[in-house]
């Protein structure tokens, strides 16, 4: 939509999954490269089990803080069904990273609805999809909660294909270190590197 060079990233998931921390790190890196950045957190009452999307727009001058349908260059789904919910926001040549991780919503828990089967196959019909097991990787590193930084690593790698070299050369590990709590630095730096190596 925007006539300028604005790029759009969507991080979608469920409240509590850490999409906001990942977005903050990504934004910090983009700002260090001199981009104009706008970031929005779109959620109803995510702390209470709702879906959440964090949107990052960057370029030489960003106007709207909101990403429209068919505009996202990269979508990272922290939860599988959320990928399905947001896939129409992807650009025709955009790429999608899907965490093979399920959080059943309340209607599924109560048995009123069934969690859709065959999501990945369906997504593959529509987009270039990379499925990763960020949960498994984070667990093997000793803490399932580092899943978001594994996903961040994969996002940075996916995005680097659409960006100048300076982007991948940003000191991402340094930004992660200065963002997370001291006792989690080692874990998260490893998680970042594992994520970047996935793609």
């Amino acid at each position: 939509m925007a006539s300028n060079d604005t790029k759009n990233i969507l991080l979608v998931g469920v409240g509590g999954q850490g999409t906001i921390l990942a977005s903050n790190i990504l934004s910090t890196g983009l700002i260090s490269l001199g981009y104009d950045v706008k970031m929005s957190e779109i959620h109803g009452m995510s702390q209470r089990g709702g879906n959440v999307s964090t949107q990052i727009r960057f370029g030489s001058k960003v106007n709207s803080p909101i990403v429209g349908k068919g505009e996202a260059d990269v979508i990272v789904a922290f939860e599988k069904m959320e990928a399905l919910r947001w896939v129409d926001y992807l650009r025709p040549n955009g790429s999608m990273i899907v965490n093979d991780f399920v959080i059943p919503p309340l209607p599924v828990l109560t048995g009123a609805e069934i969690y859709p089967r065959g999501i990945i196959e369906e997504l593959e019909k529509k987009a270039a999809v990379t499925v990763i097991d960020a949960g498994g990787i984070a667990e093997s590193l000793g803490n399932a909660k580092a899943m978001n930084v594994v996903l961040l690593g994969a996002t940075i790698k996916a995005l680097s294909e659409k960006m100048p070299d300076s982007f991948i050369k940003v000191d991402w590990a340094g930004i992660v270190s200065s963002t997370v709590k001291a006792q989690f630095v080692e874990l998260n730096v490893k998680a970042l590197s594992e994520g970047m190596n996935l793609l």
Partner: protein
Amino acid sequence: MVKKLLTGNEAVARGAYEAGVKFASAYPGTPSTEILESIAKYKGELYAEWAPNEKVAYESAFGASLAGVRSLATMKHVGVNVAADPLFTSVYTGVTGGIVLVSADDPGMHSSQNEQDNRHYALAAKLPMLEPSDSEESYELIKLAYDISERFNTPVLFRMTTRVCHSRSLVETGERVEREDIPYEKNIKKYVATPANAHIMRPALIERLKDLREYSETEAVSLGVNRAEWADDKSVGVVTSGVSYQYAKDAFGEDVSYLKLGMTNPLPLDLIKDFASKVGKLYVVEELDPYLEDQLKQEGIEVIGKEVIPVWNELNADIVANAVFGRTEAQEKSSELVAVPRPPAMCAGCPHRGLFYVLSSHNKKHDDLMITGDIGCYTLSSAPPLSAIDSCICMGASISMGHGAAKISKTHRVVSVIGDSTFLHTGVNSLMNAVYNSSNLITIILDNRITAMTGQQQNPGTGFTLQGEVAPEVDIPLLCKSFGFGEGAIHVVNPLDLGQTEAALEKALETDGPSVIITKWPCVLKKMNEEDRKAFDLAKRTCRVDQEKCKKCKLCLACGCPAIYNGDEITIEQESCTGCKVCQQICPFDAIEVIENGK
């Protein structure tokens, strides 16, 4: 200076801090809450507090202005309805220190009961209004708002919307400018709004609006607050304000001309007329009501506005482009697979669950309760499977509506449910009335020891202030007692104990006249303090289904707990379960066991 990525709310807090604000007050409400949370961090340099409601917040800020300092009151759009009474007359009297009221509107009703357009307040109350379109402008314009307030002797309305409040963009911040307090001077003619004095204030207000209009046409233009952005081709012009400006820029691109208005009351109508005369087609792009459009049309300016731009729900660049150019939305790739909705639910371990299970099962059996509800997390109990709330309109209405209904209904007993913070907001007067005018109302005050819905804010019942000081706690049962409830009509229960809660409800149902049940247990998300740990059994535990005993009767699902999973077997998700034992008490087969000390 380093540029920082700030939300609009953080930017307003920073700007107000730099402008020398010394007093800030608010009642939390999405999307405004984080302004006070941010400004409170400058403890020592300024004072910030949570008020019990928006009227108290605005009046307190106005008092601080009277006493000679710059002050701030912030609230969500519906909060301005509560604060409207002092607002209107404070515009008559004018100010001493600068005062700004931030109204955070919620187009799209992300977390609100309506999407009223509060720009109308500026016209109705006759005060200047500024509208930022991103964080940088939020920061710049709030500082300007204080200059305008003091120079023109008026409160200023600062109107934001969800996307401005909650989106982050780059802001270059500066330093705080300390200001001397303005010495107090008794001035009865200025500050006592008796009819005689108001007769003098009223024409002065009309003159002030003329001066402000002049400012909007001249200085606001030289400051770039109201500005024309000219393209070479002048065949299309767009008049816009707030976040709509950002959407318009993406939708129309750089090849059209814009008149971007940061000061939207009084409007710079001469500037607008001049702009209109120089462009071909003129569009007005604004969210919600035709606020700008109607005023332009009154001046005889021809515009295209709400005949194409939607009149409700929030806008975005797509919607504007579709409306104006008839572009179809990005082709949706059809799919048989659809994502299941993820409606918010009361958390696993939420203390409200026990109470609403009791109310819901009572109505399943007897269908004789009308349950008037209020604003808070517990409004979620109106959704299945609990479906336990029959009405919700505004803060405090549960009790007053319940009182009216109880006076009239011959078929239903009326129960009103209200949270602790909402009770202290505007429920107190209503309960006083229910006792004074004696109705057969059962009021249930859900005391979860915190303001939960907006993200854990302190209130007069929690024992702490916004800036972390220990504070006196309202004794809710004692307060109720002072209203004059009859003997045995006040009950305090643990809502997670279903037997105790049922027994209190039965007693209340037997009571002729008003009665009150206070359910007391802390919110599961609360950061517990020493007092909480002493008063409540918060030991770590979880519940687990014994599959040998489980008959899959699914009765436990009726409490709507997000930790209980109805798959091939009924299971309880151990990560999210807090061991509240509501499901265990429901299970008729003793199939749910409690595991102490966590996993």
